[in-house]
């Protein structure tokens, strides 16, 4: 039913609240969008609940906002910009979506100096060179009967740009995600680490799912990929980029959600230990630390506790393993003073005497 409603042209009278010229512009682009066949064949994305369940089957415990975001991203055909502190599962979300939908995950890690030859495409120089060498002998048969240079050139021109065609194109992540026949999940990781120029370069692919290669032309996506961008907010992203994306902020989970996440990632864990661990981590996050423990660090800690066959937290044990949760000497020191208190509280929360 959703598919049916989307196929209808956009009712323009619902947009009367906008400046008229903007409507006209945007309307035309929208109509184009809708008319382009929208492959909504990804059946599992039929409702928000289905997304939530699907993600949990893939091992990702999502809250309502996260599943709404994925659902909307698919139906609105828009990228999601995921922001939040390190280690709350931003990258993991993309991986889980891919594994749940059984789509290939194409990951592009951003860094300073990343440019289009690494992100989009590059010519296979070696292959081009090799082919020109091999074809050297054939050149005579092509231009052999030409009398002068002009005719020879004309003949060569008639062969077109053989060396600048798809065969000699080395697709990089962005192009690859557009060329996947069954669709894909494109993860653009840590976009805030890239340069501003690169951010501007991304706009075309994010808004229209197409890229322009000067020698070939514009490449459209076969199936629009599900695009996730992650950012740790080391710098403010441009408004143009934000405007094109849905914005999802993932914060630290509350104790119930965190418990669910850990028990799904560390299957054999005892319920009471789990409660203690979660309570302890949540307390640590309330302290004034340089870097508070992330969910992934809590998971690591839980694994260690499981290996050590711990069932009740005690101060010495916590002190020995604290470096799993806290990564700065100063943090360990300042938390170390309160360990007894924190551990006691954690045991109380879990109902362990």
């Amino acid at each position, binding site marked *: 039913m959703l598919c049916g409603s989307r196929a209808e042209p956009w009712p323009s009278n619902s947009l009367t609240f906008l400046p008229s010229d903007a409507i006209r512009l945007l309307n035309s682009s929208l109509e184009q969008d809708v008319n382009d066949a929208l492959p909504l064949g990804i059946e599992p994305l039929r409702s928000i609940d289905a997304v939530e369940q699907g993600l949990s089957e893939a091992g990702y415990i999502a809250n309502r906002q996260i599943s709404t*975001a994925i659902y*909307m991203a698919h139906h609105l055909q828009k990228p999601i*910009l995921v922001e939040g502190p390190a280690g709350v599962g931003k990258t993991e979300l993309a991986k889980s979506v891919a594994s749940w939908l059984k789509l290939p995950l194409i990951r592009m890690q951003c860094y300073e100096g990343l440019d289009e030859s690494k992100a989009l495409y590059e010519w296979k120089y070696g292959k*081009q060179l090799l082919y020109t060498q091999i074809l050297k002998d054939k050149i005579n048969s092509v231009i052999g009967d030409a009398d002068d240079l002009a005719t020879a050139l004309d003949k060569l021109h008639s062969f077109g740009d053989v060396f600048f065609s798809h065969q000699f194109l080395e697709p990089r992540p962005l192009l690859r995600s557009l060329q996947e026949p069954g669709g894909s999940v494109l993860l653009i990781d840590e976009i805030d680490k890239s340069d*501003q120029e690169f951010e501007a370069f991304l706009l075309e692919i994010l808004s229209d799912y197409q890229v322009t290669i000067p020698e070939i032309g514009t490449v459209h996506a076969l199936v629009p990929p599900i695009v996730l961008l992650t950012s740790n907010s080391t710098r403010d992203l441009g408004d143009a980029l934000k405007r094109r994306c*849905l914005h999802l902020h993932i914060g630290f989970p509350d104790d119930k959600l965190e418990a669910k996440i850990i028990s799904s990632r560390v299957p054999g864990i005892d319920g009471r230990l789990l409660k203690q661990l979660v309570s302890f981590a949540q307390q640590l996050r309330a302290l004034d630390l340089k870097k508070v423990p992330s969910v992934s660090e809590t998971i690591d800690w839980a694994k260690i506790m499981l290996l050590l066959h711990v069932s009740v937290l005690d101060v010495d044990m916590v002190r020995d393993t604290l470096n799993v949760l806290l990564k700065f000497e100063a943090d360990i020191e300042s938390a170390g003073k309160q360990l007894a208190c924190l551990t006691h509280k954690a045991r109380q929360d879990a109902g362990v005497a």
Partner: protein
Amino acid sequence: MIAAPASEPLRRFLQVARGAGLKVSAAEGIDAARALDIVGFEDRTVLKDTLGLVLAKTPDEKALYDEAFDLYFKRDEFSTDRAEPEEDAEDSEQDPFSSPSNGSGGDGMGGQGGQSLGSLLANDDRAALATAMEQAAREAGIENIRFFTQKNLYARRILDRMGLRALERDMEAMRQTGTPEGLGRAQFLDGRIEALRDSIRDFVERNLLLFAKGDTEKFREELLKSARLSNIERRDLDRMRVLVRQMAKKLAARYAKTRRRRLRGQLDTRRTLRRNMGWGGIPFITVWKQKRIEKPRVMVLCDVSGSVAAMSQFLLMFMYAINEALSDIRSFAFAGSLIEVSEILEKEPVEEAITKIMSLIGFGSSNYGNSFADFEDGWMRHVTNKTTVIILGDARGNRTDPRTDVIGRLSQRSKRIIWLNPEYKSAWGTGDSDMYRYAPFCNLVSVCNTLRHLERAITDILEDAT
């Protein structure tokens, strides 16, 4: 046609969101409409999450959005001690006498309007009353409310449109009959009208918050930007701090970018070879060495003496902000003598930095000559022909030797000197002001006593510096 019924509440909500300070572009408005089309209005939490994804793009905006959403979609619960079943609302809407469109039939025409309001009140049909109130409010143009003084006006208009006058006439008629039954009924309705008035006042207040909050904020900010810095009151300090930071960030984003320029004549061999691998190393395309243009080098000297004490808070605040934004900047504070404060500004949070600087050197009587001499002794050698020197101060040295010779040497060494003076031009040169003695050595001397001045001056500096 699916989105058509949704468009009206959405349009109003977008207006509210913009009012609350969210930046909602036309494209995002369309996205919101499309999103709404998919999820519909059925589930409130889903609706909230969905619109939040589309409209709010930073954590700050998320908070604003949450507030606006809750305020806007909070429907009018008339104070009631029992839960109102949904069906009631539906039933009453089918009733022609209580349908809201009739209820809003006009002011004082009697007939159906008054009857409707009367019967609504008598039946205590809260859901229908709420609908009628919404309708009346919309007709009264509630979204144009801007100031709290308009509250009573709008409350009155809404009541009128709900048919209060006709009801009052009816009640008058009841009283006239003089029968105990008529009197009792009138009294009963009086009580009900009082309750209705209260609900409407609440309703208007909520709408004022909704529609006018952003405007009021904007109005205050505009005012603050052009107010003299020395006149700004204590309670506006926080707002001011935010404004200063915004401004510094804006300026920095615009100018701190490193720009590249080709330095012709130097071939980058390594990158040329790499670039031309495809042609067997034959250099079809040459790559030239690029040199990054240096960011503006700025030295700021800020007067923190008693005479400019009211100003120096903001000057220091601005210095702090710009210090955060530009990397190559050195800051100095002076009164009787001069110290470097770059490190304090860099390491401490803004509040503490300012207090620390003020306690180190602030509030004394200023001695410009002495301070400039200090600068020459300690830091003159760091001044190069690329350095822009900004001096913030009133040039009142309490009749001490102005040491214009130091400024002369400084102007020869530096790229330029810019003097920003918080005093009006008419006061320059009067009393102990040495402004006109320093002026010949400065490339630019200008009055700077509001945030707007400051912004313009700094923009000019940065524009020329790059």
